[in-house]
């Protein structure tokens, strides 16, 4: 599962960044990438066990927001027409592939930004 690779990157980051030491971290899973939260959590816990690591984390799904560079309208996942399984899977691997399958719901432009909710991020206070 490719969730493992992403979980691994989170653990590696927490292990190497001194500013994250002994912090309770929040893992943001971008709505766009559509990570399977259960698999991700399982991967995290397995990897933490293997490394005898005590990292404390919580998981939050981060709503995806897009902004059209032509008409300026912000739009959301709910406004995007349903994608095929293969398309969703490719966005799951490389979220930027949304640009190949989605257009601005207002003006049909292919030129839009992913403002937030793209992929995996670590948040801490």
């Amino acid at each position: 599962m490719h969730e493992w690779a992403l979980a691994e990157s989170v653990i590696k980051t927490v292990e190497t960044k001194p500013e994250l030491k002994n912090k309770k971290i929040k893992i943001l899973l971008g709505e766009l990438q559509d990570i399977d939260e259960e698999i991700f959590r399982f991967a995290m816990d397995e990897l933490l066990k293997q490394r005898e690591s005590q990292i404390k984390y919580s998981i939050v799904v981060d709503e995806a927001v897009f902004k059209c560079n032509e008409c300026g309208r912000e739009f959301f996942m709910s406004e995007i027409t349903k994608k095929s399984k293969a398309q969703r899977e490719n966005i799951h691997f490389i979220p930027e592939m949304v640009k190949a399958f989605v257009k601005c719901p207002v003006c049909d432009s292919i030129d839009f930004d992913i403002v937030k909710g793209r992929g995996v991020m670590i948040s801490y206070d």
Partner: protein
Amino acid sequence: MTNLIDPRENIIAERFKDVKKIFLVSGFKGGIGKSLISSSLSLAMNDLGFKTGLLDMDITSSTDHIILGVKDKFPEEKNGILPVEIYGIKFMSFYFFTMSKPFALRGNDIKDAVKELLCVTVWDKLDCLIIDMPPGFSDAALELMRLINNFKVILVRTPSPLSIDIVSRMSGIYKDKGFKTIIVNNMSKDTTMGNSIRYDTSIDDAIGNVTAIKKTQFYRDVLSLSSDMIKA
């Protein structure tokens, strides 16, 4: 205050830790043979007995899959994403995810897409990895230079004074950072020059057919470069 960290960057070095040599194929100018050379070089390295990977870094205009005739294959998911095996080469490209749809990316998207692919692709053990670069020197090149730092740069140039000028002007970016550069003279008329690949009118007909590619003068020239290159 809430801080955000992108975790992907921290795993990339680990993804390349068992890759012995990395060659970036650039030349800054478009249409000078970077992709043909990258694909042929991978075949040649594999023929010489080196476990070889090929990574097409041209996100919107990838072509290595066309050159190698890759069809009906998709990377497997296993603790990450495994490159596709073709003619003994481990091959990865954005092509697998675009489903041949046209699309446009701005700078930040390119940076993110590059980072994502480097983070999740599991190369495992390789003697050498060839990275086919898009033309120009922009987000993908800068991002690669920031994220991996143990590559050599193959600078492709043609006899065109335009190509020669750009290579001599731009190669400083890599040299100043301590990267070793190797010039390859493509479409060469002067075969006495080192690292030359001759102009070969049969190469376009061989595209998509690896057996045919291997019969060309182009391929023989690439093969004779590659044994020096792996020693470089």
